């Protein structure tokens, strides 16, 4: 569209100047005068009744328990889906703790070390209860109950049964798999953190917090603290990674908000790595029992699925405890077209941290499940994995397409996408190499093709009935008197590069150089309401809103410009930073100068609202954009040591029109790194008592630079018919594909030995154990 700085240009990121110089301002850089530090007393037991809490003598004024928080309400995040069982999470536990790391008291001191000293002196008398640390055990009849009033440990179960049950009878190919993914910790480099301060002049709580969704936090905070929303301002400064970990109203935020007002001085809490690991392993844990029915040519006839999601102890605000499992049911069919589908899901409550949606949400597990079945069918049918997929993918001529669960695929050519990675990886040449590798080090090829629904709006979320439903996304565009442009958006940019890409959108409409476009975000005090940054929605929604605001602003600019040019308004256009008439032009800067500094030159019909506009946007259809990708990789597996190496990794991605292709590549690479973690490294195991296995990053393995191979990334650009520029959300796909592609590759390598690993992560020990099992050695 615009080769210079507009939509489609790979301009360098504006925000990187401060990030690369170490001049970003994060929560831990903020310390108002008089700030005191908080340390939370957290339960070391996963499930217990609290008998008594004794504050250290002489420090009663500096230690707070639930009963000290007068008027504070618990966090409640219900879903309106039928059968959902609600939980109420006290911000400091009162009578019962339900996972290790849950806060029971908070200590205030001059420094964090002193606050921790104090926390050690708080005596909590617990009566330990039997813990439920496994989601399948949680569903058992005699399992101990987390929320006794429920009668079981299931937040919500869902059942869908679509299509003719009879079609599966007599299917020539029937394959079954039982699969499991691990519980993970998202591990942003910056943990959570907050600074809470009561501004007595404005009679307002000001909370700086590392959040992806400041407006949602504000709403939740106001509800829990019993404050009107205008008495709360939430500011998310520079945020060092979110991925979903910071898409939540935190108990700590409520506690700190109360204390700031109650104590009359600012308080600060910076989550440390031990708190994050022991109380914040909160995503990704799924269990699947799958049966796929196919014809002899590998065409999928029906899919039967039982899926359990470990939802942890409480329903979190705003996404609730059931988003993940309900999503599993609706997206398991992936980009495939088939006739019959049955799926039951359970969101199981366990004595573990409450589940949060992590980059890709349920899709990483779902793609692993579905793509495992595709490979299983291929093996039975004696076909190449890509061949089976090509026979089942939604064809391009069917677009837009409503699939078996009524997901509306907006556009795309999935078979072409798959063919491109198959070509990139050169399957025939690989098979030849693979046949020769018959020694202890085997080679395997794996692939995955999947879609990523993004920017889904009102129609999708109103159905869930959770505390947050996205509606119109708004943006404010205002010209400064010297022709600069300020954009105010309610989302938060924490690595996505939105300070650059939203400026590019504005540039495409108005032509203001991006150096003169300033994006203000993450502050409820100065930005329009927004549900924030999640679901790969910002480029579509905030991008659409910025374009709309700039378009409306252009009309006002044009009227003033026409007057200055002495021509009719219909004869001018706004482009390239100017108002152009038939025989001359005037710069937007001059228009701005006229409005603010020389109003005597304005036309009589100039809009008195001036050069500042807040406009709202919704996509033409709000069922979401469907970007998609195919991943293919080659691995070597040392069948003696279990060592796995990724030798090649090719991706073809279609994110519609790319606003900044360089940033999209960065999103893909970062996502794949996390997907490699899911596939091969990351696992927070909990023992039977609900104790997490890792308290430091020495025990919780994250992939680093040496674990991420060079990725070969290819792009298709099929525009979405429903968005402003044809752009699609693209932030999560990188993390979705690798578990499926890598697991398929490892199992392809092991197939010759008759061995298979059916759970993530695929560790060396699991590979060796699978090989030994295939050998008949126990």
């Amino acid at each position: 569209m615009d080769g210079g700085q507009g939509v489609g240009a790979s301009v360098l990121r504006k925000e990187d100047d401060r990030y690369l110089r170490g001049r970003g301002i994060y929560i831990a850089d903020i310390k108002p005068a008089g700030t005191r530090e908080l340390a939370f007393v957290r339960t070391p037991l996963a499930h217990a009744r609290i008998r008594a809490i004794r504050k250290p003598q002489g420090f009663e004024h500096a230690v707070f328990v639930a009963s000290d928080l007068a008027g504070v309400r618990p966090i409640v995040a219900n879903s309106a889906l039928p059968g959902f069982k609600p939980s109420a999470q006290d911000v400091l536990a009162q009578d019962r703790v339900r996972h290790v790391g849950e806060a029971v008291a908070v200590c205030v001191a001059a420094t964090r070390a002193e606050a921790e000293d104090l926390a050690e002196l708080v005596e909590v008398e617990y009566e330990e209860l039997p813990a439920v640390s496994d989601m399948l055990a949680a569903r058992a009849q005699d399992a101990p109950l987390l929320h006794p009033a429920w009668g079981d440990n299931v937040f919500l179960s869902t059942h869908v049964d679509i299509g003719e049950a009879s079609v599966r009878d007599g299917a020539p190919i029937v394959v079954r798999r039982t699969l499991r993914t691990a519980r993970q910790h998202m591990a942003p480099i910056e943990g959570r953190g907050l600074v809470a301060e009561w501004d007595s002049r404005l009679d307002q709580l000001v909370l700086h917090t590392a959040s992806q969704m400041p407006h949602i936090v504000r709403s939740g905070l106001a509800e829990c603290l019993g404050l009107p929303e205008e008495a709360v301002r939430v500011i998310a400064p520079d945020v060092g990674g979110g991925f979903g970990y910071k898409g939540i109203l935190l108990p700590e935020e409520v506690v700190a908000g109360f204390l700031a007002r109650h104590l009359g001085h600012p308080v600060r809490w910076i989550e440390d790595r031990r708190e994050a690991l022991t109380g914040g392993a909160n995503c990704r844990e799924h269990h699947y029992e799958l049966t796929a029915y196919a014809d002899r040519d590998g065409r999928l006839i029906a899919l039967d699925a039982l899926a359990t999601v470990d939802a942890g102890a409480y329903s979190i605000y705003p996404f609730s405890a059931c988003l993940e499992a309900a999503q599993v049911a609706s997206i398991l069919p992936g980009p495939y077209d088939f006739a019959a589908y049955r799926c039951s899901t359970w969101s199981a409550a366990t004595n573990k941290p409450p589940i949060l949606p992590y980059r890709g949400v349920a899709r990483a597990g779902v793609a692993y499940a579905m793509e495992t079945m595709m490979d299983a069918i291929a093996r039975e049918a004696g076909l190449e994995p890509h061949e089976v997929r090509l026979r089942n993918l939604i064809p391009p001529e069917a677009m837009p397409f409503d699939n078996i669960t009524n997901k509306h695929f907006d556009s795309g050519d999935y078979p072409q996408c798959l063919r491109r990675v198959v070509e990139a990886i050169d399957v025939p040449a690989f098979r030849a190499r693979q046949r020769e590798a018959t020694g202890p080090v085997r080679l395997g090829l794996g692939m995955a093709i999947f879609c990523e629904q993004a920017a889904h709006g009102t129609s999708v979320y109103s159905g869930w009935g959770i505390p947050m439903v996205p509606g119109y996304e708004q943006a404010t565009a205002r010209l400064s008197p010297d022709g600069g442009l300020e954009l105010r958006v309610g989302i938060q940019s924490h690595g996505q590069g939105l300070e650059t890409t939203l400026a590019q959108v504005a540039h495409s409409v108005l032509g203001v150089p991006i150096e003169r476009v300033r994006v203000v975000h993450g502050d409820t005090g100065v930005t329009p309401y927004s549900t924030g940054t999640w679901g790969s929605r910002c480029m579509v929604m905030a991008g659409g809103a910025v374009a709309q605001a700039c378009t409306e602003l252009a009309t006002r600019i044009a009227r003033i410009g026409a007057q200055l040019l002495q021509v009719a308004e219909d004869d001018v256009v706004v482009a390239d930073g100017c108002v152009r008439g038939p025989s001359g032009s005037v710069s937007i800067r001059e228009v701005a100068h006229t409005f603010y500094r020389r109003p005597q030159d304005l036309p009589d019909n100039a809009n008195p609202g001036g050069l500042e506009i807040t406009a709202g946007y919704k996509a033409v259809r709000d069922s979401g954009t469907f970007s998609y990708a195919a991943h293919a990789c080659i691995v070597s597996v040392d069948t003696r040591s279990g060592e796995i190496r990724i030798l090649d990794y090719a991706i073809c991605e279609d994110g519609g029109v790319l606003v900044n292709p360089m940033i999209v590549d960065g999103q893909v690479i970062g996502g794949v790194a996390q997907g490699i973690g899911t596939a091969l490294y990351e696992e927070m195991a909990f023992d039977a008592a609900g104790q997490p296995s890792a308290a430091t990053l020495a025990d919780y393995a994250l992939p680093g630079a040496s674990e991420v191979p060079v990725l070969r990334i290819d792009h298709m650009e099929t525009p979405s018919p429903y968005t402003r520029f044809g752009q699609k959300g693209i932030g999560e796909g990188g993390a979705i594909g690798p578990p499926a592609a890598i697991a398929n590759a490892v199992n392809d390598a092991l197939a010759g030995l008759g061995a298979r690993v059916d759970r993530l992560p695929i560790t060396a020990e699991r590979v060796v154990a699978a090989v030994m099992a295939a050998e008949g050695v126990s």
Partner: protein
Amino acid sequence: MKAPAFDLALPESLAQAAQLLASPDSRAMGGGQSLGPMLNLRATRPALVVKLTGLPDLIGVEDASDAVTLGAATTHAQIADGLTPDLEGGVLARIASGIAYRAVRNRGTIGGSLCHADPAADWLTTLTALDAVVLTSTRPIALSAFVTGPYRTILAPGEIVRAVRVPRPAPGFAWSYHKLCRKPGEFAHAMVAGLRASSGLRLAIGALGGPPLLLRDAEASIGVAETSLSFLEPAARRIQLEAMSRVLAELAA
């Protein structure tokens, strides 16, 4: 995750340090790469931390015809960068360069690592195979007798490791070291070091949760190791034996 309050002493002599460390409430610190995190995690809470890396007795190296002696305060990075004497073929530099990450190597010391006695630490296993001797403020101790359990050594209260002496094997020796980690820089889940010299074969198997298992000459066979490691889970045992096979194959080559 902030350390509880403690006093920090920076002694200027070995005698002064020994006196300070005679108290059961004190802990010696080298580069602080293990003790630092332990203090922050409040996993250890000494009243007094005695920082030893400034002591002249712990600094410096000696290059003799029969042995290389490295002061206890020598950092992994100094060894990895070839700033200290080494065995033929750069054996010590190669070991050092594989320890954790550069930031850790910059501060971590060889003496500190041995005294910390982490079962999966590189120096403990490799120097056991190399038949190194720990020189303390009072006596020499063969490394094979130095570690008594996980994170436990034979050191008496107030006894300080001054240096480690690594004997030079006769020319023509063969050396091999393999560790299997989830990723480079992580603590290994399997590690085997082997030395074949005129004096015989020494194989040390580490990451076993305690001191390394030392197998000499005829003992250094897969069969003996398999029996000795019967306490491990089958898959973990097979991975250890795989590391051992690689070492034996390299030593035979």
